[in-house]
C-alpha cells in the first residue's frame, strides 16, 4: 500500500495523479512510454474532467485510446483498447513527434537534476558503471523535440534529485539559463511532480523551485530529500490542493480500478 496523505482521504499515488492531471492544459497532445502509470492515469483523468478534448496516444501507438482499465504495462496492447488509430512507430509516431504535432512529453528517471535533465542510463562513470540502468529509450529524442515536458518521480530522495546527473539521457534545460533555447529547442520542463511536492522552474535560471508542498511535508523535509540547494521561501509555500471526490472516484473506480499506478511505488 502507498502512504496516505494526512487530512486528504487519499493516498500519495492518487494525489500525484490528480496534481499531474490538473497541470495538463486543455490543448494537451500527449503520448506515453514504458512504466508511465501516473501520466497515463492523469491523461485519462484530465480527459474525464477539465480537458475533454485532450489527445493521448496510449503507448505512443493507440490514439484516443479508451482502455477499460490501466493494464500492467503502459507500452502493450491492453492500454490501447478503444483507440481510433494504431499509429505505426517510424512513419506516424516519429513524424508526429519530430514535427511537434504532439506538445507534451512526460518522463521519469533514476536521477533528475536541478535543471530538469534526467538520467536513466548509468549510475557512476559510463565506462565503469556502478549500476547499469535500462537506458534512455526515446528520452534523448523526445526531450529535444517536444516543447512541454512534465517530469515526475515517486522516489524523492537525494539519490534521485541530484545537483548534476551522471549521464544526460534526457535534456531538460541543460546548464540552465538560456541553454535550451540557444540550442534551438523550444519550451522545456514545466513541472516535476514528486511524492513530496510539486516543483516548477524559475523563469530565468531554469532552476527547480517548489510550487507546492504536499500536506504534512515541510520545506525542510523537501530540502533534506533533495541533493541540490533550494531557495528558502520568503513566504509560506502553498499546499498541493485537495483532490475532489469526483477526481478520486473516477481514478479509483473507472480509470485505474486495479491500482496499476501503485506499480511505480516499490
Amino acid at each position, binding site marked *: 500500500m502507498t502512504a496516505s496523505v494526512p487530512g486528504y482521504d487519499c493516498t500519495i499515488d492518487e494525489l500525484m495523479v490528480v496534481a499531474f492531471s490538473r497541470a495538463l492544459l486543455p490543448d494537451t497532445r500527449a503520448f506515453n512510454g*514504458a512504466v508511465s502509470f501516473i501520466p497515463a492515469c492523469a491523461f485519462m483523468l484530465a480527459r474525464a474532467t477539465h480537458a475533454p478534448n485532450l489527445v493521448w496516444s496510449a503507448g505512443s501507438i493507440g490514439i484516443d485510446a479508451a482502455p477499460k482499465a490501466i493494464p*500492467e504495462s503502459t507500452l502493450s*496492447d491492453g492500454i490501447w483498447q478503444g483507440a481510433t488509430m494504431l499509429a505505426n512507430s*517510424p512513419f506516424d509516431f516519429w513524424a508526429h513527434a519530430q514535427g511537434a504535432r504532439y506538445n507534451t512529453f512526460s518522463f521519469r528517471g533514476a536521477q533528475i537534476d536541478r535543471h530538469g535533465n534526467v538520467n536513466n542510463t548509468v549510475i557512476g562513470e559510463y565506462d565503469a558503471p556502478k549500476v547499469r540502468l535500462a537506458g534512455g529509450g526515446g528520452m534523448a*529524442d523526445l526531450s529535444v523535440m517536444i516543447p512541454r515536458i512534465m517530469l515526475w518521480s515517486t522516489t524523492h530522495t537525494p539519490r534521485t534529485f541530484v545537483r548534476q546527473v551522471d549521464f544526460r539521457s534526457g535534456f531538460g534545460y541543460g546548464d540552465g539559463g538560456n541553454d535550451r533555447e540557444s540550442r534551438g529547442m523550444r519550451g522545456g520542463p514545466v513541472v516535476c511532480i514528486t511524492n513530496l511536492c510539486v516543483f516548477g522552474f524559475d523563469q530565468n535560471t531554469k532552476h527547480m523551485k517548489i510550487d507546492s508542498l504536499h500536506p504534512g511535508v515541510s520545506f525542510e523535509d523537501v530540502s533534506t530529500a533533495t541533493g541540490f540547494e533550494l531557495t528558502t521561501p520568503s513566504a509560506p509555500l502553498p499546499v498541493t490542493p485537495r483532490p475532489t471526490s469526483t477526481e478520486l472516484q473516477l481514478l479509483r473506480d473507472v480509470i485505474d480500478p486495479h491500482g496499476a499506478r501503485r506499480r511505480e511505488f516499490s
Partner: protein
Amino acid sequence: MISPLQPSLDTTNSANKVLSLSDAVAGIPDGAVIGLGGLSMNSAPMAVVREIIRQGKKDLTMVALVAGLPIDWLAAAGSISRVVTGLVSLEGFGLAQHFRRGVEGRKIIIEEYSEHLLICRLQAQAHGLPFVPTRAGLGTDVLRLHKDTGTVREEVDPATGEHYVACTRLPIDIALVHCHEADQAGNARVNPKLIWMDNELVNAAPHTIISTEAIVETDAFRAEPWRTTYPRFMTNTVVHAPFGALPTSMFPSYSHNSTFYERYVAASGDSKSFQTFFERYVVAPASWEEFLELNDLAKAGTAMGSGHKNK
C-alpha cells in the same frame, strides 16, 4: 560485367523459403550482426531467439531498439558480446539482470543510442545514404559516446544554421522478425498492421528470417494486397512458429505472459538457482511446442487483455 546467365546463390526469388526452426537458425554464423524485431514486451521473435541459444551461437551482436526478455536470455546464455540499443529492461517487472551484469562485468559491450537515432541509422542503411538527419539526442550525453566513431554526430546546416544530428549507416547482417502470416515465397503480414520498427530492420538487412504464426497460400495475399507488410523479395527464410513471440505479446492474437515474466524475475535473484531455472525451463525443451507446454504458455497466453494482474 555480370553475365545475366551467371548462376547465383541468391535465394531472394525462391518460391519456397520455408525451413525448420533448427535449419533456419543453423544458417546464422557466429559473430553475426543481428537486427532483433519487436519492442519491449511486444512481438519479439522468441522461438528463433531460443533456438539461437540452443545451438550455442557465440559472439553475436544484437541490434535491438527497445528490448527486454530476448536480450536477457541471450545474455544469460553467453550468446552475445555486443548490443546496439536504446533501452533494455523488463518494464514494470524490473531491470534485465543478466544484461545488466554482463555490461557491468564488461562481458557485453553496449553501443548505446536512443530510439530515433537508431531508426535514422537504419533508414540511412536501408536507403544507401551517407546519413539521415534528426534533432534527436541534441544536448544529451548520448552523442558524446560516439565522438570517436562519428556514427552519430552533431552538425550545422549551412543554409539555415539549424543544428541536427547526422546518423550514419548501421550495417546489419540478418533481421529476425515475427509476423502473423507468411506464404512459402516469403510474402508476410502483421495484423492488423505493423506498429513497431521491424520494417526498419528488414529494409536495412540483406537477409531476413521471418517467423510466422501461420503459413498461408499466396492467394490470401492477392485477396488483400493492401495488408501485406513485407514483399517476398525482402525476405529469405520463412519459419513456421505458432505462438512464436511468447512470452512477449503478438497483438492482437495474444498478450505477453505475466506469469512467465514473474517467474523469470524471481529466479534471476540468485545466479545458481537461475542457471537451474534457465536450463530447465528455457533451454532444455526439445521443441518450441515443448517449451510452450512446459511453461504453460500457449494456453495462458492466448487471451488478449489479460494484462490486469496488478498490485
